[in-house]
C-alpha cells in the first residue's frame, strides 16, 4: 500500500454545486477533518486515477450506476484527458466516508435528475488532466528534461529529444508525489478521441455472468435476514403485535419494532423471516389518513383547477384579457395518477452496528445520503459510519428520493449489535410503501385569434409537490419551482419551446398523505403530456396540421425546433403512412436537453400497436452515442408502460396495487422499433437518462387521437379499455 499525497481541495474538484448536494439532504456533512487514504491496490496519482504496475488504470466513479451508463461515460471523460489506453481502464466506487474524510474531493454523489455527466464532466475531465500532467512531470523529472518536451499517447510518455519512453504504470508511484497542477487546460472538443465514441460499457461482463453485486446480493459472515411490514397507511402506526405467536418458528431470531410504524422479523434465512412475518398478528392504528381515497384526492385536486390562489411559474402578457378577446377558446382537463417506480430489485439494505461503528451496504442513488442516514439512525457521528455502494437493480429516482430502507436496516441492526442484518422488502411492501410519481390534474385554456394564431394559454396545475415533502428547504416562498418543469420562460434546464404572447402557468399545491418522489422524468412527464397533447387539440380546433401549428410558435426556439423537424422528416410526416398507421408528435426540453418523438400506431378495437418511434435528442455533447441510443429506447419502455398500464390507487388511505398482476408493464413483444437520432449541437451539457421519457406518452397519445379521433385525458389507458398489442 502506498502512502498518498494529501489532495488539496481545489476549486476545480468540487465547486459550489457539490456543497449544495450535502446541504440539500438537510444534513450538513462535515468538511473539516484530515485527509484519508482510499483502500486501493496500486499507487494513487490523484483522487480520480490509480495506475497499477500492470498498467491497469482504475478510474474512481462517485456517481451511482443504475443502468444509465454513467459509470462508463464518466470513465470516458476522465480517460480522454488522461490519455491512457482505454482497453486498460477499470473502475471503482470510492465510499462516501472517504469523500467526507477527503473534504469531498469527488464532489457530489447524488445521481438523479440526469445529472451524472452534465454536472461533473468538468471536474472529472480536470481530474484526468491533472493526473496526466503529474505522470508527465514525474517522467520528466526522472529524465531531467522539461515536461513540456514530453508527449503522451495511450498511457506511454515519450521524450523525443532523448528518444526515451516510459509507461504510466512505471511512474505512477512517483507521480503521486508530484504537486498537483494549479492551471489545467482541457482539450478542445474537436480533439476528443474517447468522448463521443460508443465504447462498450465497463460493467457488461459481470452483468452477463451473475457476478455483479447488487444490494440484495451482499453477504457478510454471521449475517441474518430481516423482513419488514410497515403500516399500510402512510402516517399510521403499529398498535400492537404478538411476537409470541411466531418466536418459536424455525429460524426466527428476533421480532423487533422499527420506530412506531413497522415491525420486522429477523431469522436465519429471508424466507423464514418473511413467512414468520406473514403469520405475525399485527394491529395497526391507521389514523386519519385512512379516510383518504383516490376519489377524495381527485375531488380535492379538481377544486384546485379553479381557485384564485396559485403559485405562478411563467407569466407573460395578460391571459385573462386575451382569453376574453379570443375569437375561439379551447379548454381541456387532464389528470395523471400515482405510479410506483417498480425497480426490479426491491428495496433492501444491509447494516452492521456496534457501539463505535455503523456500516451500511446498499443500492442507492446517493451514497452520501446513505451515509448521513446511517449516522442519523445509529446516533453515531459520520466519522464512525460508512456506506458501501453496490450496483442498483434500477433506480429511476426511487433510491434518490428516500433511503428509508437504509434507516430501517440500521434501526434493526441496532437492536442486535454486532450481527450484520440484511433487510429485504417483499415486492408487496415495495409497491405499497413507495415514493410515488405525484398525482396532478391540469386545466388548459387556449385562445385563438381570428386567423387561428394561438394568442393565449392558461395552464393550471393542481396537485402534489415533490419538493414540499422531500426537500422543503428548496421551496421558494412556498412554491415548488420544479412543478413548472418544461414550462420555464427560459434557462438551461427545461424551457418551454413555444412563444405565446399571453401565457400563465400556475400551480395550486395540494399534498395528499402519500409520499411523492422523483420518478424517471419527474414533473416533466405529466407536464409534457398536458402541453403536447393540448397543443394537438388546439391545432385541430384551428384546422392546422400539428407540425405546422407548432412551427409557427417555435421561431424563437431553434433547438426545440431542430429536434422536432428531425423526427418529422425521418418519420415521413406529411407523407402517407402505411395503411391503418397514424402518426403523433411531441417535443420538449428537459434536464438540459432537447428531445422530440414521432410515434406511429395503429388501433384495432381496443388494441393499440405502437409500430415505430423516431426519437431525436440534442444533449449538447454526446459522450457515448451507443449508450444514449439505449437510454432513448429504454425511455419508451418506461414511459409507455406507465401510459398504458400503471396506476396506484388509494383505498382507505393505502395503495391497492401490490405486484405485477395489478401493475403491469411492457414486455418484449410490445416493444416498438425505436430509431434514435442524436444531434449534439455542442456548447452545453444536457442529460440523457430522463428527457426522452417526457415525449413518449404524448407522441403516442397524439397518434392514437389521429387514429381514432378520440382524445384520452386520464391515465393509464387501461382505464379506457385500451391495451398494448
Amino acid at each position: 500500500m502506498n502512502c498518498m499525497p494529501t489532495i488539496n481541495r481545489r476549486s476545480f474538484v468540487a465547486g459550489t454545486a457539490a456543497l449544495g448536494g450535502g446541504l440539500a439532504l438537510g444534513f450538513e456533512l462535515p468538511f473539516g477533518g484530515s485527509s484519508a487514504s482510499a483502500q486501493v491496490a496500486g499507487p494513487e496519482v490523484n483522487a480520480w486515477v490509480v495506475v497499477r504496475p500492470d498498467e491497469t488504470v482504475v478510474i474512481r466513479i462517485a456517481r451511482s450506476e443504475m443502468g444509465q451508463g454513467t459509470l462508463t461515460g464518466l470513465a470516458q471523460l476522465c480517460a480522454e484527458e488522461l490519455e491512457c489506453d482505454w482497453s486498460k481502464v477499470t473502475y471503482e466506487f470510492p465510499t462516501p466516508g472517504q469523500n467526507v474524510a477527503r473534504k469531498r474531493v469527488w464532489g457530489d454523489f447524488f445521481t438523479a435528475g440526469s445529472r451524472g455527466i452534465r454536472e461533473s464532466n468538468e471536474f472529472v475531465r480536470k481530474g484526468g488532466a491533472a493526473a496526466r500532467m503529474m505522470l508527465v512531470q514525474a517522467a520528466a523529472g526522472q529524465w531531467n528534461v522539461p515536461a513540456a518536451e514530453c508527449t503522451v499517447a495511450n498511457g506511454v510518455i515519450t521524450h523525443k529529444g532523448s528518444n526515451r519512453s516510459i509507461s504510466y504504470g512505471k511512474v505512477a508511484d512517483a507521480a503521486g508525489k508530484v504537486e498537483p497542477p494549479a492551471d489545467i487546460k482541457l482539450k478542445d472538443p474537436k480533439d476528443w478521441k474517447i468522448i463521443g465514441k460508443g465504447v462498450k460499457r465497463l460493467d457488461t461482463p459481470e452483468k452477463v455472468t451473475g457476478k455483479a453485486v447488487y444490494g440484495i446480493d451482499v453477504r457478510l459472515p454471521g449475517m441474518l435476514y430481516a423482513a419488514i411490514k410497515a403500516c399500510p397507511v402512510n402516517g399510521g402506526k403499529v398498535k400492537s403485535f404478538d411476537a409470541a405467536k411466531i418466536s418459536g418458528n424455525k429460524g426466527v431470531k428476533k421480532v423487533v419494532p422499527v420506530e412506531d410504524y413497522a415491525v420486522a422479523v429477523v431469522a436465519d434465512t429471508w424466507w423464514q423471516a418473511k413467512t414468520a412475518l406473514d403469520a405475525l398478528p399485527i394491529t395497526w392504528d391507521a389514523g386519519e389518513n385512512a379516510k383518504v381515497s383516490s376519489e377524495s384526492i381527485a375531488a380535492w385536486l379538481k377544486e384546485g383547477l379553479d381557485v384564485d390562489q396559485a403559485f405562478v411559474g411563467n407569466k407573460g402578457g395578460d391571459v385573462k384579457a386575451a382569453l376574453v378577446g379570443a375569437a375561439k377558446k379551447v379548454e381541456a382537463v387532464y389528470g395523471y395518477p400515482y405510479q410506483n417506480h417498480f425497480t426490479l430489485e426491491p428495496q433492501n439494505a444491509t447494516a452492521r452496528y456496534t457501539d463505535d461503528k455503523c456500516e451500511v451496504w446498499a443500492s442507492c442513488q446517493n451514497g452520501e445520503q446513505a451515509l448521513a442516514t446511517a449516522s442519523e439512525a445509529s446516533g453515531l457521528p459520520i466519522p464512525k459510519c460508512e456506506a458501501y455502494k453496490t450496483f442498483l437493480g434500477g433506480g429511476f429516482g426511487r433510491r434518490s428520493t428516500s433511503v428509508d430502507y437504509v434507516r430501517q436496516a440500521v434501526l434493526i441492526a441496532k437492536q442486535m449489535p454486532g450481527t450484520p442484518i440484511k433487510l429485504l422488502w417483499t415486492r408487496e411492501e415495495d409497491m405499497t410503501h413507495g415514493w410515488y410519481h405525484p398525482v396532478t390534474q391540469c386545466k388548459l385554456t387556449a385562445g385563438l385569434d381570428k386567423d387561428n394564431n394561438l394568442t393565449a394559454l392558461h395552464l393550471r396545475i393542481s396537485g402534489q409537490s415533490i419538493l414540499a415533502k422531500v426537500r422543503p428547504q428548496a421551496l421558494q416562498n412556498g412554491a415548488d419551482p420544479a412543478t413548472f418543469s418544461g414550462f420555464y420562460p427560459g434557462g438551461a434546464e427545461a424551457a418551454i419551446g413555444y412563444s405565446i404572447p399571453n401565457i400563465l402557468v400556475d400551480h395550486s399545491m395540494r399534498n395528499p398523505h402519500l409520499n411523492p418522489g422523483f420518478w424517471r422524468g419527474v414533473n416533466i412527464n405529466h407536464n409534457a403530456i398536458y402541453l403536447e397533447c393540448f397543443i394537438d387539440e388546439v391545432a385541430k380546433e384551428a384546422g392546422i396540421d400539428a407540425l405546422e401549428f407548432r412551427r409557427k410558435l417555435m421561431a424563437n426556439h431553434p433547438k426545440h425546433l431542430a429536434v422536432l423537424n428531425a423526427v418529422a422528416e425521418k418519420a415521413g410526416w406529411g407523407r402517407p403512412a402505411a395503411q391503418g398507421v397514424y402518426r403523433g408528435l411531441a417535443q420538449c426540453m428537459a434536464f438540459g436537453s432537447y428531445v422530440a418523438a414521432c410515434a406511429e400506431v395503429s388501433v384495432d378495437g381496443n388494441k393499440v400497436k405502437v409500430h415505430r418511434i423516431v426519437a431525436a435528442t440534442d444533449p449538447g455533447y454526446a459522450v457515448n452515442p451507443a449508450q444514449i441510443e439505449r437510454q432513448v429506447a429504454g425511455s419508451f419502455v418506461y414511459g409507455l408502460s406507465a401510459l398504458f398500464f400503471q396506476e396506484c390507487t388509494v383505498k382507505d388511505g393505502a395503495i391497492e396495487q401490490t405486484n405485477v398482476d395489478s401493475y403491469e408493464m411492457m414486455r418484449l413483444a410490445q416493444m416498438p422499433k425505436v430509431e434514435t437520432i442524436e444531434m449534439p449541437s455542442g456548447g452545453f451539457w444536457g442529460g440523457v437518462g430522463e428527457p426522452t421519457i417526457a415525449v413518449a406518452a404524448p407522441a403516442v397519445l397524439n397518434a392514437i387521437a389521429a387514429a381514432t379521433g378520440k382524445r384520452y385525458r386520464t391515465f393509464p389507458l387501461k382505464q379506457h379499455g385500451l391495451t398494448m398489442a
Partner: protein
Amino acid sequence: MARLTVNGQSHTVDADPDTPLLWVLRDQIGLTGTKYGCGIAQCGACTVHMDGMAVRSCSVPVSLADGKQIMTIEGLAQNGTLHKVQQAWIEHDVPQCGYCQSGMIMAVAALLKEKPKATDADIDREITNICRCGTYQQVRAAIHSAASA
C-alpha cells in the same frame, strides 16, 4: 432436507419443503446471480434451468427440485467459455442495470436449446421477462445473433 444438484455440484440443504428454490439458491447455497423480482412467477428475474427447462424459481418449491439438475447463471459458462447467449449479450452490450439479465439470459438459453432458429414470433411468445430499463430492442438483436452463432 432436500438434495439438489446445482451447476453439477450436489448440495444437501435444510429447508422446509415449500421453501421456494430461489431462496435456497440465494441464501443457503450462496448463488446470488439469480434474482428476486416479484415472487409470483411474473417477472422472470429468478429464471433457472431445471432438468434443462426454464423455470421461475421463486415459485418452485424446493421439494419439487429434489433430485433434479439445476443450472443457474453461474453455471451457464462451460469450462471457462461463455455460453453463446452470454457472448451475444456482450457483443450487443445488452444490460443496463443488469438486474433482470441473469433471468433473461437463462430464459433465452432454454429457448434456443428448444428452438435453435427462434423467430421473432417465438421470441415474442417465449421471452416474457420484465426489463424495467427497457433493453428489449438489444435483447431481440442479441437473440438473433446467438441463434446464428
